[in-house]
């Protein structure tokens, strides 16, 4: 049976999705990247391979696509047929489930985005800037401060009857604000609900600024698991928010669909064996010109398989011995 694999490697989590030719999701996987994208990809592939062996040994990988902030790295070490940015990948994923969707809110670990769709294609988008304040990492940090597990964050938020106003532009600022609110005796649930509202407000005022937000609205990413956030967005937008299935792995699903639609005659996939190979990434500063590009080098079992990061193409175009 022919199947297509999508891999989404973000800074916080790595997602793998395997689909068949009928666009059915066979296995969705969600792992922590934990600062080691190579390890996460290898771990994910190993787990996937075990599942395939145990359940559908006749599966054949006919194509691989990668997305997310580490899409190049992931593409190089797996031998991907398609490397696609996460905006297009998410748009694709959503449209396959929800052809009518007009707005996609996606909040992940370290970035957040909005995608405006029309007739099943992205027509506009926005991404958060440098700062993590509009993202899952912000909620993680505050949950940690308050000493509550982030999984319970949403339910606690729902208990609040009078959410506290907390500035949520910047992790540092809101932390001092939050401490102050704790000191003057605000209830934890009110603070938690206030944080959710603050994050939603911050998202709408920055990431989604100037975008034409129309229903139906779809909410994706790790933060969409948080029911408190869902409510905060519904209140702020005055619209119903839908959280579709596969909400946390939509990017991987999208890129799998994209590979399936643009198949190459023979996949470049390097096989599940790579999960047990020694893969290393090193970087060096090219001294060739004042640009001083940071060139990244990927090696599998000591052999260089790819170089990238240079502006002039001196290294990335260098003919590489096939690994």
């Amino acid at each position: 049976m022919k199947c297509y694999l999508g891999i989404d490697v973000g800074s916080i989590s790595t997602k793998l999705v395997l689909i068949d030719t009928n666009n059915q999701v066979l296995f969705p996987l969600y792992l922590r990247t934990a600062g080691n994208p190579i390890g996460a990809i290898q771990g994910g592939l190993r787990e996937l391979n075990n599942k395939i062996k145990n359940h559908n040994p006749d599966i054949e990988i006919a194509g691989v696509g990668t997305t997310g902030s580490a899409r190049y790295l992931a593409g190089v070490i797996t031998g991907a047929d398609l490397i696609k940015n996460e905006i297009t990948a998410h748009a694709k994923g959503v449209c396959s489930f929800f052809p009518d969707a007009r707005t996609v809110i996606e909040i992940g670990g370290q970035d957040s985005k909005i995608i405006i769709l029309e007739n099943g294609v992205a027509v506009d988008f926005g991404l958060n800037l440098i700062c993590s304040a509009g993202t899952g990492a912000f909620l993680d940090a505050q949950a940690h401060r308050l000493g509550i597990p982030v999984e319970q964050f949403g339910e606690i938020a729902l208990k609040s009857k009078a959410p506290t106003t907390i500035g949520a532009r910047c992790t540092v600022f809101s932390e001092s604000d939050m401490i102050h609110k704790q000191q003057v005796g605000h209830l934890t649930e009110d603070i938690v609900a206030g944080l959710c509202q603050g994050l939603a407000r911050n998202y709408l005022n920055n990431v989604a600024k100037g975008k034409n937000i129309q229903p139906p609205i779809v909410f994706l990413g790790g933060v969409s698991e948080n029911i408190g956030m869902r409510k905060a967005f519904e209140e702020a937008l005055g619209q119903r928010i839908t959280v579709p299935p596969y909400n946390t792995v939509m990017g991987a699903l999208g890129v799998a669909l994209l590979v399936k639609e643009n198949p190459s005659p023979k996949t470049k996939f390097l096989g599940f064996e790579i999960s047990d190979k020694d893969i290393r990434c090193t970087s060096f500063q090219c001294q060739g010109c004042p640009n001083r590009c940071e060139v990244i080098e990927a090696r599998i079992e000591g052999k260089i398989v790819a170089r990238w990061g240079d502006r002039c193409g001196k290294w990335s175009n260098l003919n590489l011995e096939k690994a």
Partner: protein
Amino acid sequence: MKKPIITFARWGNYTIAFKTIFEQLGLEVIPPEKTTSQTIAEGAKIAPEMYCFPLKVTLGNYLPALKKGANTIFMVQNVGGSCRQRYYGAIQEKVLKEAGHDINFLDFRATPKDIYSMIKKISGASLLQVLKAGRFFFKKLHLIEKIEKLAQFCRPREIEKGITDKILQESLLKLDELKKEKDFQELKKEILKRFSGIKIEKNKDLPKVGLIGEIYTVCDPTINFEVERKLGLEGIGVYREMDITYHIKKLIFPWKDWIIQRKINPYLKSTVGGHGRDAIYEMLHYIKEDFDGIIHLLPFGCMPEVTIRPILEKIHLESGIPFLSISLDEQTAEAGIDTRLEAFTDVVRNYHQYKSSKL
């Protein structure tokens, strides 16, 4: 007085032409360092935090030149009218002196009279010499702008990937090394011949993107992470009207300003400093020319561009043309810009396809 060793504010490929003026007048010149993440970080370290990005960048470019012995800095003032650029010289002189640099800071207004008297004072050159240097400067300037435009055209159409940029870089290097005006014509011919020799796919149907925004950021590829090149290599036709010639033309022919104002009247009825009005004018123009996307570049917090951005967004929502605004500062990471450009390229292609399917 010490013998002046000159450096100046760097600005993309134009740096080559600026350098020529001083060389032609027999002045010793150490060109500012090429912009890198390193120079940007060094500049930002001593610059006022809330000041706009180009001030920090140009400061960072001076520092290595000062280390190599430069002691005189040229900084132009008043490029953009009402905005903060007017005080770049004053602020840069202050922070450099506070950082312990003993320099002669020459802050001049961008008027022929001011430029002439400043150059005269430092070089003692005659009017004729200054005019000659000026002529050579303009020759180089025009050729730089010409080959930048040729590269914009060839890149998305080239058959051998990367050849355009190779020729562009080599041409710029030769132009930089050219010292004698009498050899210029020959080099120009050679460069143009090389460009016309690039094999391209003719009649290729390309999506078109217009680059608008603040003049310094749109014209300097080292600041804008080579937006033009990246889009071009993705097969997008990139167009940019804003350059020094455009700016000078506006100074010489004031009615150009009047035409721009008339065109943008439904949206904005006043100057807002810098080239704020021009961005609106260009966007409307590109929409009329059936473009498939607009990229707006600005330094983070740039007063004129931030003022008019809501207007650009309104035009974007009214017309449906894809629009991406990128604010640049010392915190901007290239990876983030790349993701945006890649996604934008997809959006532009979708729009292009959608438009042609309607025909």
